């Protein structure tokens, strides 16, 4: 059986939190990520770009009442990578419990 692998792209704290937030969601607005993660727009955009470059998330732009809104979601590749990353973390954490 293949062992779960840690993913360096997901492992960074802010990107891990972004993926964890998006995992149970179909999609979330940029504003939700910014408020929840608690980082600046520019830093969040940078983290999102890195996840997007890895093919883990995708963005969709839509206008509501003339105001642009950006929706972000995990791709199926991103979901698989995140699930594998969590499994690897659980394996490591289990070592602490012996």
């Amino acid at each position, binding site marked *: 059986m293949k062992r779960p*692998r*840690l*993913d*360096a*792209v997901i*492992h960074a*704290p802010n990107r*891990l*939190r972004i993926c*964890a*937030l*998006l*995992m*149970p*969601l*179909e*999609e*979330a*607005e940029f*504003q*939700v990520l910014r408020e*929840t993660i608690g980082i600046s727009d520019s830093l969040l955009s940078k983290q999102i770009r890195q996840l997007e470059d*890895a093919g883990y998330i995708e963005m969709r732009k839509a206008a*509501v*009442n003339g105001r642009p809104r950006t929706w972000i979601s995990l791709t199926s590749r991103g979901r698989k*990578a995140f699930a594998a990353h*969590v499994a690897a*973390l*659980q394996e*490591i*954490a*289990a*070592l*602490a419990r012996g």
Partner: protein
Amino acid sequence: MTNPWERPTPQEATAALDSIENMTEVALERGLRPRWFAVSMSLWVGATTVAKAYDGPAADIVIAALFVGGLLGLALWRRRIVARVRAVHSVVGTVAAVAMIVGVLVILMVGDRAFEVYGVSWAPFATGGVVAAVLFMAFEVARRATRAKLTAGNA
């Protein structure tokens, strides 16, 4: 992608898992329909049921007003959505939804008959109340099942 030099210690891994759990909670809070939504929808359907059952001279106007008001409310609520949880499907859920629809239709028929045939004046209110209660319970069960499934999927 794997970087062996960044392998976390068991303590760091535990902290990361805690952080994931927190984010999952926040995501579910933001993405799941709020409880007031279930209350509003149940009251809306219950009130429409009462108006329909009475079938008085102003019934059509009341029903139309409730219908339009409800649709406007739904449209306004949809605009405020900032996160949507993933759809969770289960055979048990589908069977329960079908059973609920059949049950509500039976309640409507019984209430209608009690009012029109047997002249039970409070039947429309009882029918509306029961329909609202059943609907609220259905929303609540669905909310809890979705939460449980998505929390397990993220663990």
